[in-house]
């Protein structure tokens, strides 16, 4: 097959490119410039070289926030992915029940981040919140403003509540795309439910699962509004994640140089993870295509 390449089509991308250069590339360049200087005013800046990067990389608070961030992302992945698959498996497959369950499941996804934070903030209050009050009445010493473990568990519970539906919906669509013939063959073979799941459903779900893992990882790695509203990063700094540390530094303390250096490191980590996930997805599809072609 001879493909026709017409590079003039690139001109159509030009308006977008100009827009992006003003909204992303020029600001990014400015961040890079700030990261190597101590900018005091319009005409007063000192070149600091790599000093900010060295400080940021060795800052114990940021290292702690980074570890917390990774722990958080992997914890919610470990809960949300299996839970999402499980929910997708027991969701009704047709009729009005399917529509009703889909709507119910999607509801948490429609709520803005900071509203989710507020909802849970009220929900967990000891005096008027159903969960906070209820747990205390049952004799559990539950207080997210004093106990770091409680705050952690609540944030994880909140994230699971907010985002498991996304995983469930992706898996549900993946499950629906499996042709009936596979299940008929499995019935002829008298395959157990587990065997059907292990050898038919799970392999067919791989692609949507990679997308789900990618989306959930990115989202959770940049989480800001929900813990900020719910706990404000406390008690102490036990639920302060990376984006909140960055905001405190850049907006709260106006330390533009160090926060520029820190944003670049943050950006590089996200870039690396996105690239790994993207490459994985593309290669899985490539493998599939080559199998299909053979």
């Amino acid at each position: 097959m001879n493909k026709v390449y017409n590079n003039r089509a690139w001109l159509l991308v030009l308006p977008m490119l100009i827009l992006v250069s003003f909204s992303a590339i020029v600001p990014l360049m400015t961040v890079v410039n700030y990261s190597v200087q101590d900018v005091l005013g319009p005409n007063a800046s000192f070149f600091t070289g790599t000093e900010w990067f060295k400080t940021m990389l060795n800052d114990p608070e940021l290292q702690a926030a980074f570890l917390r961030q990774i722990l958080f992302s992997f914890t919610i992945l470990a809960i949300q992915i299996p839970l999402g698959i499980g929910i997708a498996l027991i969701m009704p497959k047709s009729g009005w029940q399917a529509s009703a369950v889909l709507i119910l499941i999607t509801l948490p996804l429609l709520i803005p981040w900071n509203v989710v934070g507020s909802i849970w903030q009220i929900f967990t209050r000891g005096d008027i919140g159903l969960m906070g009050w209820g747990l205390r009445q049952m004799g559990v010493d539950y207080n997210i403003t004093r106990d770091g473990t409680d705050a952690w568990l609540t944030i994880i519970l909140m994230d699971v509540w907010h985002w498991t539906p996304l995983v469930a919906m992706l898996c549900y669509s993946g499950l629906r795309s499996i042709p009936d013939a596979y299940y008929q063959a499995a019935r002829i073979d008298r395959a157990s439910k587990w065997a059907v799941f292990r050898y038919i459903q799970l392999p067919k779900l791989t692609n949507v699962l990679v997308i789900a893992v990618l989306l959930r990882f990115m989202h959770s790695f940049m989480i800001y509004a929900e813990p900020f509203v719910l706990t404000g990063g406390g008690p102490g700094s036990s639920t302060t994640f990376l984006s909140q540390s960055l905001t405190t530094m850049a907006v709260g303390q106006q330390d533009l140089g160090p926060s520029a250096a820190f944003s670049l490191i943050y950006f590089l980590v996200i870039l690396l993870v996105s690239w790994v996930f993207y490459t994985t997805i593309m290669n899985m599809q490539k493998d599939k295509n080559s199998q299909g072609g053979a």
Partner: protein
Amino acid sequence: MSWMVWTMPTAIFFSAIAAMLAGMTVWEIVSPTIERKGFLPISTTRGDRLFVGLLSAAFIHLGVIGYTSLSIWLALAASLVWLLVLMRWG
């Protein structure tokens, strides 16, 4: 442009990146890339290898700056060697 607080090193850095992208474009027009598999676990085009090289160069620099007292020029040299190895055999 003064609000962007340019410095000479960052200007050189971005010029080098821009020159690389321009060079890659010219190279692509002169002789289009062929996707192949080297020592990396995935098959890559020239552009992929440049991206991997630049991204690992960034992390090499961060590692050297943050956790060693070695000169940053050493990091640059190591990154360049790694980039060349990657472009040729990656």
